[in-house]
């Protein structure tokens, strides 16, 4: 059994719009090992949710998708779409941003949790219900047995997200994707849900992809971090290394934009100048060039290729942050 659980290569997603094609993903590679927690971070429109959806086989209507998704050695693009859907449903669980939207308002949660297990794993309805009760108490819903016949609106926001987590776990997947799973929740509840996700990943030795725009969500909860900008992964590596010594100017700027509680009063907050790029008008070069402090004329013609400055890190930048440039020059 290989160490690698999920391997995405050359993922591209183009969405045709009236203003031209939006390049939501411009060639992304991502590897997730068994039991590894990967943070996918970036601002809105950076393509992180598109990537998460591509992995589970969902896409915006009309979008053109290309690239390979290999799950546990099986190339999901080479099998029949129905088979691929079955494999994905069975082995990947996903938790979306808004639990109210992800749950059907007119179907009791018991059925919503159990239906996929009954269909994908061929267990009986009764078995699935027993498992659902167990799952609900695992995700911290009290009085689980009697709540199976309740409807989504009878739960609070935090409990609702716990229900969707139970749904994602119903098929006992190998990979859990949390796509902005806590963004729509109160800050206090956010913390509880994040702790729950981390605990579940550990207990079930789940691999997990945590998608978030919030660096503080990613830091301290993930093994590796991939930073996305303009539809590409600009930098990735072990979380501690990426946060301690960012190499890409974008990552560095993001980290500097975090307000610090120990900063002197009335000091100005740092912001990244400019706006995220219009993905329908991306030029040929590095998408961050327009806002980058290190930008040079050679950033514009071609998107920087993926380089491996250090064994377990990737970088797509011609003019990385200085500290790193030194490290690279060293023999």
């Amino acid at each position: 059994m290989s160490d690698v659980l999920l391997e995405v290569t050359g993922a591209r997603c183009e969405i045709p719009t009236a203003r031209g094609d939006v390049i939501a993903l411009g060639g992304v590679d991502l590897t997730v090992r068994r039991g590894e927690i990967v943070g996918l971070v970036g601002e809105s429109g950076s393509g992180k949710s598109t990537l998460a959806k591509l992995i589970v086989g969902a896409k915006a209507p009309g979008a053109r998708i290309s690239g390979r998704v290999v799950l546990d050695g099986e190339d999901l693009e080479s099998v029949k779409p129905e088979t691929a859907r079955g494999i994905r449903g069975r082995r990947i669980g996903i938790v979306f941003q808004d639990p109210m939207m992800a749950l059907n308002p007119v179907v009791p949660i018991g059925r919503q949790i159990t239906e996929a297990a009954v269909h994908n794993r061929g267990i009986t309805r009764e078995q699935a219900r027993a498992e659902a009760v167990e799952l609900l108490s695992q995700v911290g819903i009290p009085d689980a047995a009697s709540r199976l016949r309740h409807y989504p609106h009878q739960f609070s926001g935090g409990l609702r997200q716990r229900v969707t987590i139970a749904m994602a776990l119903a098929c006992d997947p190998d990979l859990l994707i949390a796509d902005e799973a806590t963004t729509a929740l109160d800050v206090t509840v956010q913390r509880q849900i994040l702790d729950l996700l981390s605990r579940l990943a550990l207990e079930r030795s789940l691999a997990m992809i945590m998608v978030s725009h919030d660096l503080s969500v990613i830091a301290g909860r993930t093994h590796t971090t991939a930073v996305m900008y303009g539809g590409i992964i600009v930098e990735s590596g072990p979380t501690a290394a990426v946060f301690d010594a960012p190499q890409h100017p974008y990552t560095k700027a993001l980290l500097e934009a975090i307000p610090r509680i120990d900063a002197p009063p009335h000091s100005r907050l740092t912001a990244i100048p400019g706006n995220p790029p219009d993905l329908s008008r991306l030029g040929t070069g590095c998408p961050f060039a327009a806002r980058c402090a290190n930008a040079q004329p050679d950033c514009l013609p071609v998107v920087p290729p993926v380089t491996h400055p250090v064994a377990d890190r990737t970088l797509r930048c011609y003019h990385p942050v200085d500290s790193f440039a030194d490290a690279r020059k060293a023999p």
Partner: protein
Amino acid sequence: MTVLQRERARVSNIRPRSHTLHRLRSIGGRALHLVAVLVLVTLAGTALTDLMPGSPASIILGPTASDEAIAALNAEYGYDQPLLLRYLQWLGNAITGDLGVSIQSNQPVVEVLLQRLPVTLELTVLALLLSLAIAIPAAVYAASRENSMFDRIVSGLASGFMSVPVFVIGVLLVYVLGVATRWFPVAGWAPLSSGLAENLHFVFVPVLALALGEFPAFYRLLRSDVISTLREDFVQTATVRGMPRGYILRRHVLRPSSFSLITVAAVAFGRLLAGSVVVESLFALPGLGSLALQSIPAKDIPMIQGIVVLVAVTYVLINAVVDATYALLDPRMRRI
């Protein structure tokens, strides 16, 4: 005990509020609403006579009648009384099940209505069921394959039938199924008492004519509602969890898409009940529509009032049923 402990004990002792009272109140409110609507409609029915020029008797007896004859008839039927008194009298009788006597035929109105109602009711119910049976599968299938060949053909057909009046559809059906092929009778009626097969044989073509007129609205409404439900996130959730398309359509999409369909179907039911005049007269069916058609020119006021009351009561009852259905379909509308 600390303040905190006391507070905790207090909170845990709060029983869930009894909801029986709440529910009773809600049912009571609905019943009150029903009564108010019925009073208004029947009052308007009684007031119809005041809206006609001249007195009812002068209209019934014609221009050559003597003043004495007119006065006598007005007195006989109570049309010389003020509106409110007439209404109260009528209401008092109506509550005991007496809607008066037909001026035209001298039969009790209730008796005639009960004779005619089953015909119209059968026609309406069957037409509604048939049109839904066509519209629901077609709409769901077309919506799940938006812009496919099937979608385009059926949507085109629906637009076509929508723009053809029901009497044209009726005449066409009579020609094709009755005259050309002789599969079905051209017109007429056999009551259920003469056998189900015989009854269905006569009722089929009129039902088909009505259903073809009704299904386009149902089809188009449900199709667009299903299309918008298919864009909901929970459909995507079910899809990425590997649920098959058919299951998603049946289990997740149909119910939340059917609210407007139910409203429109209920309105259509009421409308057909009162207004299948064209089809009833085209096929010579002894229903309420043809009864209204006979009674109005004959100025048979008790009969017209009886029809109005019957239709109004049915309408109100249907609406009550629809309200209950909403709660059945959407748990969010249930009063806990």
